[in-house]
């Protein structure tokens, strides 16, 4: 949409000239005496409007006349009055100024200035569009194709007007054959429209499609863009989304399309390029968010030879499908919203204003229940990732799951098509290659199962990879929920699908199916899903192993769609029925419907202590609705200090280049002031195991769940291997320890911590960020198993025998640091990465204790078992002149007594595990020697 920005700037540049011209038109006005500025501007507006409308009519008449006479040839200027437009409203002045004699009343000819969205009320007349085709030349279509396009418009125009409103600006639209030059992606998307083609003409640029039905459907799409004229929406999510939703509705309206076109073929076009059909729940993923659906650098880039289209088409399809839901409930929604931006063009780039306007339309259209799928508009909007016009930076992964029509012997075959790409701060996208992912298939108990070797890995090239697993018959024909996780780099895309009996009955695919999560049943309880239309229950299906499915057919028009259904999850305990969840779902189109019935899937996590001022490491436990990090923190975008470490570049990514907050990841945040009551609302897959993918090196992660977990509830998956216990993976697949960040003392000037230290952790707590090291070149995946997940097997890891104790230093202001000292069978007196853990560096002001083992500073210092060991502990960051304590805690084994030597004074004290020694720091750095043995 940058051309619009340019035109707008151009208009501002000539506004003064135009106004001077206008003010000479009605001198009588000034004879009244002194006028206020507002009166002058209002008078000018009135004059200009009259002038403008007359000019417009004159233009139209001239064009029509020339067309009738066969005189019209593109590019031949003819003289028309200069068009001037003024606005008295603050916030924008729109004016068109045509020096080259462009015939359109709103934009200008070559070398002139084009009109664009102004901030004031629209004062132009609207009217029908007239299509103009070249009869010869490079932009002319074959005659039959031109006739097809014209016939499509002629037939569809009344329906377009009904569903989308009359055109913003009437007049001639040039339709150009761009078959040889249009970008691959623009052709797949169905052509495009320019309000000004550079020669003063609004123009549809359209390829020549092989099938008439394809051309017809895509031409409806372009016509609707032309209806918006220069006053479109600033984001593709609104403009393309609404246009594509209305395109679907027009094409599916009886009699709206020429009768010589095959309705089935047109439906096929919709289902390939416009409608995600019943799989919206599965594809509603954050990776879709983008300011522009086709990244600027990819507009002219050919599609890869492999045939993969990348993400852009998924965005178009999902945006259209999202708005199609709204149209299912409010058929003239788009027409109503368009009228609002025609009246106030600046609204088109004001997302909060559009959201508010949308709610107003709902209020007016259905006062009794002004909602979409049961939500107020703003809440519904927040839940549709594709509608958020916020570009998502960093590496992103989108995983689209499509069911393959079953044949006899198939229990559930799905195509998992993943797209891996990175977005830079300019919005340019790089489709990633030479990356291998290892999809993980889980049963309903989160035990990994495999299908066949060819589904074991996904090799990405030009951003695309796919597998087609045929999910196994795990329960002798019974339903079960299969979770398909695709971990690639540090991203995980998850879809939960129904398998086996839920998906297919006797080799025939069901037309209604889905999965449940977050339900805990007592013995003897049953779970059912009921489906209702208009208050009438039309089907009920049992939920087995967290999956359900069946066939509804044509009951109440279910098969054809265009209706709203209500799905309820009902638990039956004895004679008591309890509805656990009810979802209202719009089903705009035909075909099967896949539904996620996740109980407690929307949560708000309140950080126990809010977010502190200064630097801290923040974990994200749920999946925030918004991708706008600054909005989440409530900080100005140009003052938002957020960073995440990327081990592959060995550098931090800083906001705004950093990825959006994502469940399972953590981020450094530096706030000027604390946020005492910080809470994060988002999606949560209650009761299911959650995966976090790691890249080789140090990763900033967090617990993607709302309740704390011990490491015994965490498994590690490497490539195609079966999961291993966390302790088993330590030292081989992942580092021996993982760390959280402890902010240091306050910066004496800022009054908030600007540095700190890393401390090892033994648990994962929500909201806390951790650094964990991946040692495997292929990456690994952490699997967090919540407590209420049944039957998670955790093989006991063999823990090395011996003794271990903690030495804990605590200052008077409450800061503390600790070292782990021990003697283990198999350990050595020198550094050994299988047993010992180096200590991370301190940043700025921070308290830190390290056991000195040769040149290595260790947090965990495990020595040979069975002999006395001398540990030299160096403590940094002590407050000079103030007291601090040294205490101890037993980790394992028997430690009867040991000695502590204060190396500053030479004093030796005999201690026991519950001893606590108090010292006064004589320097910021001091050392102590602990001589110990245990059993």
């Amino acid at each position, binding site marked *: 949409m940058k051309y619009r920005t340019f035109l707008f700037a151009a208009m501002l540049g000539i506004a003064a000239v135009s106004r001077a011209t206008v003010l000479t038109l009605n001198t009588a006005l000034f004879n009244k005496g002194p006028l206020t500025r507002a009166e002058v501007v209002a008078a000018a507006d009135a004059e200009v409007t009259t002038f403008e409308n007359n000019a417009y009519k004159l233009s139209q008449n001239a064009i029509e006349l020339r067309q009738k006479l066969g005189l019209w040839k593109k590019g031949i200027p003819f003289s028309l009055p200069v068009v001037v437009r003024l606005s008295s409203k603050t916030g924008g002045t729109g004016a068109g100024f045509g020096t080259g004699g462009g015939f359109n009343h709103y934009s200008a000819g070559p070398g002139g200035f084009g009109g664009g969205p102004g901030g004031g009320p629209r004062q132009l007349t609207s009217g029908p569009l007239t299509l103009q085709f070249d009869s010869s030349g490079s932009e002319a279509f074959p005659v039959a194709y031109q006739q097809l396009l014209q016939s499509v418009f002629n037939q569809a125009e009344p329906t377009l007007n009904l569903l989308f409103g009359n055109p913003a600006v009437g007049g001639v639209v040039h339709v150009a054959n761009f078959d040889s030059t249009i970008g691959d992606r623009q052709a797949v998307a169905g052509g495009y429209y320019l309000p000004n083609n550079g020669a003063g003409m609004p123009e549809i640029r359209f390829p020549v499609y092989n099938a008439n039905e394809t051309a017809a459907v895509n031409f409806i799409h372009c016509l609707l863009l032309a209806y918006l004229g220069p006053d479109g929406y600033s984001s593709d999510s609104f403009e393309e989304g609404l246009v594509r939703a209305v395109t679907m509705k027009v094409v599916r309206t009886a009699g709206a399309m020429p009768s010589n076109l095959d309705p089935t073929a047109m439906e096929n076009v919709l289902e390939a390029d416009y409608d995600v059909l019943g799989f919206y729940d599965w594809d509603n993923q954050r990776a879709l968010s983008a300011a522009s659906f086709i990244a600027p650098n990819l507009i002219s880039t050919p599609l*890869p*030879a*492999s045939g993969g289209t990348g993400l852009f088409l998924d965005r178009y399809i999902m945006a259209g499908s999202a708005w199609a839901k709204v149209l299912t409930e409010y058929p003239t929604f788009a027409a109503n919203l368009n009228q609002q931006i025609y009246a106030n063009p600046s609204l088109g780039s004001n997302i909060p204003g559009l959201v508010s306007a949308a709610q107003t339309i709902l209020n007016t259209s259905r006062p009794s229940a002004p909602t979409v799928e049961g939500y107020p508009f703003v809440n519904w909007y927040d839940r549709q990732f594709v509608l958020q016009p916020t570009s998502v930076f960093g590496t992103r992964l989108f995983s689209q799951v499509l069911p393959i029509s079953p044949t006899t012997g198939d229990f559930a075959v799905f195509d998992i098509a993943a797209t891996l790409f990175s977005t830079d*701060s300019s919005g340019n996208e790089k489709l990633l*290659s*030479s990356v*291998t992912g290892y999809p993980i298939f889980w049963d309903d108990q989160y035990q990994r199962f495999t299908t*066949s070797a*060819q*589904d074991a*890995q996904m*090799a990405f*090239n*030009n951003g695309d990879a796919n*597998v087609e697993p045929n999910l196994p018959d795990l329960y002798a024909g019974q339903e079960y929920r299969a979770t398909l996780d695709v971990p690639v780099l540090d991203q995980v895309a998850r879809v939960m699908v129904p398998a086996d009996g839920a998906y297919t009955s006797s080799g025939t695919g069901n037309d209604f199916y889905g999965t449940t999560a977050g339900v805990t049943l007592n013995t003897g309880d049953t779970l059912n899903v009921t489906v209702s239309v208009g208050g009438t229950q039309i089907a009920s299906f049992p939920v087995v192993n967290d999956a359900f499915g069946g066939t509804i057919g044509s009951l109440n028009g279910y098969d054809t769609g265009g209706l709203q259904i209500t799905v309820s999850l009902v638990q039956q305990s004895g004679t008591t029925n309890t509805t656990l969840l009810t979802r209202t779902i719009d089903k705009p189109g035909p075909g099967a419907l896949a539904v996620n019935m996740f109980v407690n899937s929307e949560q708000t996590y309140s950080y126990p202590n809010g977010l502190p001022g200064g*630097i801290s*490491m923040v974990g994200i436990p749920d999946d925030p609705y918004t991708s706008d990090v600054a909005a989440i923190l409530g900080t100005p975008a*140009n*003052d938002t*200090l957020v*960073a995440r*470490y990327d*081990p*592959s*570049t*060995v*550098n*931090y990514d*800083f*906001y705004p*280049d950093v990825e959006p907050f994502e469940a399972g990841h953590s981020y*450094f945040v*530096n706030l*000027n002031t604390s946020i005492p009551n910080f809470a994060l609302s988002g999606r949560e897959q209650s009761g299911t195991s959650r995966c976090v993918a790691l*890249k*080789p*090196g*140090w990763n900033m992660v967090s617990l993607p769940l709302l309740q704390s977990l011990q490491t015994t509830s965490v498994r590690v998956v490497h490539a195609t291997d079966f999961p291993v216990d966390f302790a088993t993976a330590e030292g081989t697949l992942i580092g021996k320890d993982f*760390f959280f*960040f402890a902010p240091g003392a306050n*910066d004496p*000037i*800022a009054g908030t911590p*600007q*540095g*700190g230290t*890393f401390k090892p952790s033994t648990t994962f707590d929500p909201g806390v960020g951790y*650094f964990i*090291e991946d040692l495997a*070149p*292929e990456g690994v995946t952490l699997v967090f198993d919540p407590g209420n997940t049944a039957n998670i097997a955790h093989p006991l890891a063999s823990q090395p025998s011996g003794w271990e104790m903690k030495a804990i230093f605590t200052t008077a202001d409450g800061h503390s640091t600790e070292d782990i000292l021990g003697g283990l069978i198999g350990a050595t007196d020198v550094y050994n*990465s299988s047993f010992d853990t*180096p*200590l*991370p*560096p*301190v*940043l*700025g002001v921070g308290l830190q204790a390290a056991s000195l083992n040769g040149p290595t500073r260790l947090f965990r210092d495990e020595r040979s078992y069975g002999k006395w060991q001398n540990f030299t502990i160096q403590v940094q960051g002590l407050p000079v002149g103030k007291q601090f304590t040294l205490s101890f805690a037993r980790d394992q084994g028997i430690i009867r007594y040991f000695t502590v030597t204060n190396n500053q004074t030479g004093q030796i004290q005999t201690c026991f595990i519950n001893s606590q020694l108090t010292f006064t720091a004589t320097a*910021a750095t001091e050392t102590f020697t602990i001589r110990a043995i245990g059993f």
Partner: protein
Amino acid sequence: MKYKTILTVCGLIAATILLSLGLVACGGGGSGSSGSITVTGIVLDVETGAPTNPQSSVQAGSLSTLTSAVDGSFSLNVPSGTSSLSVDTNGPDGVFTFAIPPATATEDVGDLYVGPNKVTVTGTVVDASNNNPVQGATIDFAGVLGTTNASGNFSLANVAYPNSSFAAFQGIVGSVRDPNYFAGTFNLSNATLTGGSIDAGTILLTPLSSTTPPPPPGDLYGTVTPAALGANSTVTVSQNGTPFRQTAADNTGSYSFWLPPGTYSISAVNGTHSSTPVNVTIASTTDIHQLNLTIN
């Protein structure tokens, strides 16, 4: 992906036929058991991704064995130090020679692909953290080994390439190894054959990580010198003449701040010694500056 299933079935059928004809494990020339080192691997047809049909002969000097008709695997005892194997497809695809790491112990050479054509695979290996070329990295694609030069470039000659069915070739995952980096992978599923050569493009290698987590982020960092005065010196950032942040340099004189965009003055002090204040402008939240200070 069902074609793969079909191929597997075909392979099994072929294996069954061969078994019935008594053609399996006939052995090639030589004894096949006189060496002291065992080399194992799998020979696959790049056209199908399946074992070759007929079975191939794997040779090292005068020693040879036939590959398994079922899975293409072979095991051959060779003299210590053996550094190449030749694979005779016993068919129109002819003979392929593979360099292997000099055998000193039991060695699995992985998948060795043979096929109707031979092409050259090229590429460049760079450090992901700075885009500098990685010299001396070992490349393995389809069983053909190579090494990167000072520019990070590699060229693997005589890589098997199919005639008509490219699924198996596109599924081959090449590996890149260097002792200072995590192993990397690449594939050629979308690369184009041009003049007998296929370019794998640029392959990024991630440096091996430190044994400890990286320090927290900062956008203004540097070192205070000389070391004797820089160590543990006090570094102060001011804005419009007013102190804004203050930290202590570490034992090496290094310091770091994470500042919002703005124009600042930074100086270091150690006792009676101080540095000359230096101005720096952080233009945006992604603007990173290194600024070293000297205390006099």
